[in-house]
């Protein structure tokens, strides 16, 4: 049987059993912000969180990551590649929207197989996801409009459902089923447990009331690149990077070299970038095709709702709502998408008038 139950006070036991084999990442409360960090003490793990402030992309695609290190002498450069990519990683307590974001990452980091980012892909291959359903989605959540669901299990290896005093544990992928079987001390789930989990999933799905007509967004974006709506959409934006940094699907990065001239060595690092930065797409000539916030805000929306569907046949948004509630200027994505959806209506009105 693939369905088991884990008592809430057994999280420590689970941790102790798995931490030898895996780098164990889980949500913790860091000064009021939920973030995924490597766990030292299982008591730090927080599973009854709404959604993490910092998305778990930070585990596999950290804000800064050394790609390789090098030493130089007069003639040669010696490169040392990463040695830690075989390490197994476990991301525990990830939400379905964030797990789904890794599916988008897989496309970005392998670009139709034409080019492969070995560092990311290797780490992802060695990663196991133990996810948890969202019993109480936030009002800013809209995963059901973007192919998601608060209990979507597809991208997980193991899936947990919070039943109150226990978690229902389900092996989803072969890797996950194997892991659940190995945890032989888990007791079998009852029929009632399964029924309760189904009910919770139904309630959660129904509680998501924000509905966005994404098909129309995608369609309208094809023709509205020069539309004045972007002036309005970017009006309140202050040009910070919080929407992009806290977005589980934003993958843009910058590459920098840190050189230690005195010791003839250095390292190449990739760091998160954001299309809202004035340096983003700044060309060597000094020209920047996106030099105002109107163009930068447009890029953010186009990337997620037009370029992603065109390039990968997937939406670049998982509906987690983080950008909605972290935006300092409250430039709400739901309102932005609504404005894009209404573009044609407005033009029809003009014709009538």
């Amino acid at each position, binding site marked *: 049987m693939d369905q088991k139950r884990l008592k809430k006070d057994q999280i420590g036991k689970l941790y102790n059993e798995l931490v030898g084999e895996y780098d164990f990442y889980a949500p913790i409360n860091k000064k*009021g912000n939920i973030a995924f960090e490597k766990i030292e003490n299982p008591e730090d793990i927080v599973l009854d969180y709404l959604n993490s402030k910092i998305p778990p992309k930070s585990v596999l695609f950290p804000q800064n990551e050394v790609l390789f290190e090098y030493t130089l002498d007069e003639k040669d450069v010696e490169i040392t590649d990463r040695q830690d990519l075989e390490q197994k990683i476990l991301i525990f307590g990830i939400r379905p929207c964030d797990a789904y974001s890794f599916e988008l990452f897989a496309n970005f980091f392998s670009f139709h197989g034409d080019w492969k980012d070995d560092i990311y892909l290797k780490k992802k291959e060695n990663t196991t996801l133990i996810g948890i359903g969202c019993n109480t989605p936030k009002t800013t959540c809209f995963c059901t409009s973007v192919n998601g669901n608060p209990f979507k299990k597809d991208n997980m290896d193991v899936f947990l459902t919070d039943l109150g005093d226990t978690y229902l544990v389900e092996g989803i992928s072969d890797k996950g089923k194997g892991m659940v079987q190995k945890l032989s001390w888990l007791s079998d789930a009852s029929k009632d447990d399964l029924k309760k989990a189904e009910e919770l999933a139904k309630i959660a799905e129904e509680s998501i009331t924000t509905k966005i007509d994404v098909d129309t967004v995608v369609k309208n974006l094809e023709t509205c690149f020069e539309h004045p709506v972007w002036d309005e959409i970017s009006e309140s934006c202050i040009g910070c990077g919080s929407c992009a940094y806290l977005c589980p699907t934003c993958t843009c990065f910058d590459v920098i070299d840190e050189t230690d001239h005195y010791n003839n060595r250095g390292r190449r690092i990739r760091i998160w970038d954001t299309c809202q930065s004035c340096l983003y797409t700044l060309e060597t000539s000094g020209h920047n095709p996106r030099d105002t916030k109107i163009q930068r805000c447009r890029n953010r929306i186009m990337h997620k709702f037009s370029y992603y569907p065109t390039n990968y046949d997937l939406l670049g948004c998982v509906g987690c709502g983080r950008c909605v509630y972290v935006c300092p200027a409250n430039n709400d994505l739901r309102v932005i998408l609504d404005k894009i959806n209404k573009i044609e209506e407005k033009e029809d009105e003009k014709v009538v008038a």
Partner: protein
Amino acid sequence: MGIETDNKEIISSIRENAKLLLSENQVDVIIGYSEGTVPLSSTPIIIRKEEDVDKLIWNNLCYINLARYLAPLMPQLCDSEGNSLKIGIVAKGCVGRAVNLLAVEKQIDLDNIKMIGFNCNGIVNRSKIDLEIGEKEILDVSISGDDIIVKGHNWEKKFPYDQYINELCKVCQIKSPSATDANCIGECQELESIHDEFSDIAEFESKSADEKWAYIKDALQVCTLCYSCRQACPMCYCNLCFVDQNMPTWFGKTTQFTDIFTFHLIRAQHLAGRCVACGACSSVCPVGIDLNIITRKLEKIAKERFDYTSGLNAETIPPMMDFKMEDEEEFMLEED
């Protein structure tokens, strides 16, 4: 009674004045605040037509300093030739200070700006409330009498308003713009000087150097370098910030503590004596870092040494931009 009633009066005066400015063609646009779509927020808005003035609001969550949109001037506030429109700006005291200082620093032309002044009654400390509520979704925030009422699904919590506003707001002496009737409509005051006790930073000042260091280190451990503090600051208007300079690169941009600390430290130094004490940097931080005590401390030093308070008028040059022969230099190290 209380804050709620004050806000109603402020809103009607803002709308009335905005309508007047637009109807008399004194301005082309008004920049103000509108209702937020999520609790504990508000959205800056540009109003172009008289009939839209009812979208303007004031509540104690209007934490963005609107002067931030004036320099660099955003494209939406320019005509088709790129020249500044005539702008009306809804101005609490610290917006007024920023407008004055931007004029002193020659970033804006006051002839194009008309302030709609009012007496600000403080800004709610969002992160303090967020922190106390924890992992429960806030569905509604309102003010009733003198309480902030925070509601969620099947729960409600009251916060006394006077305790849950920004520390800066508790000691604020400049609640309405320091301006003349010529560039301000509504509440304003002409200020020569103010008496500020800086009691909001007394606790921080009383710490030892080691304790201060520990405090700053602790506060910055969650910083993601999203630069929202810089972007929200009305006085951070450089075309290219020092951290963004990459030919050559002066500062690291990783999330190692040295890089994070260097950014915050140098940003604070650039604001020495120029901070207008609006607290926007703290209010906008997505991870709740509150470090404006550093710029406040620098503001205090500028006051003690040079009797200078930023933004009281549009003429006085900030001490770090000025030179006077009679400046005392007792802090210079003497040669043995």
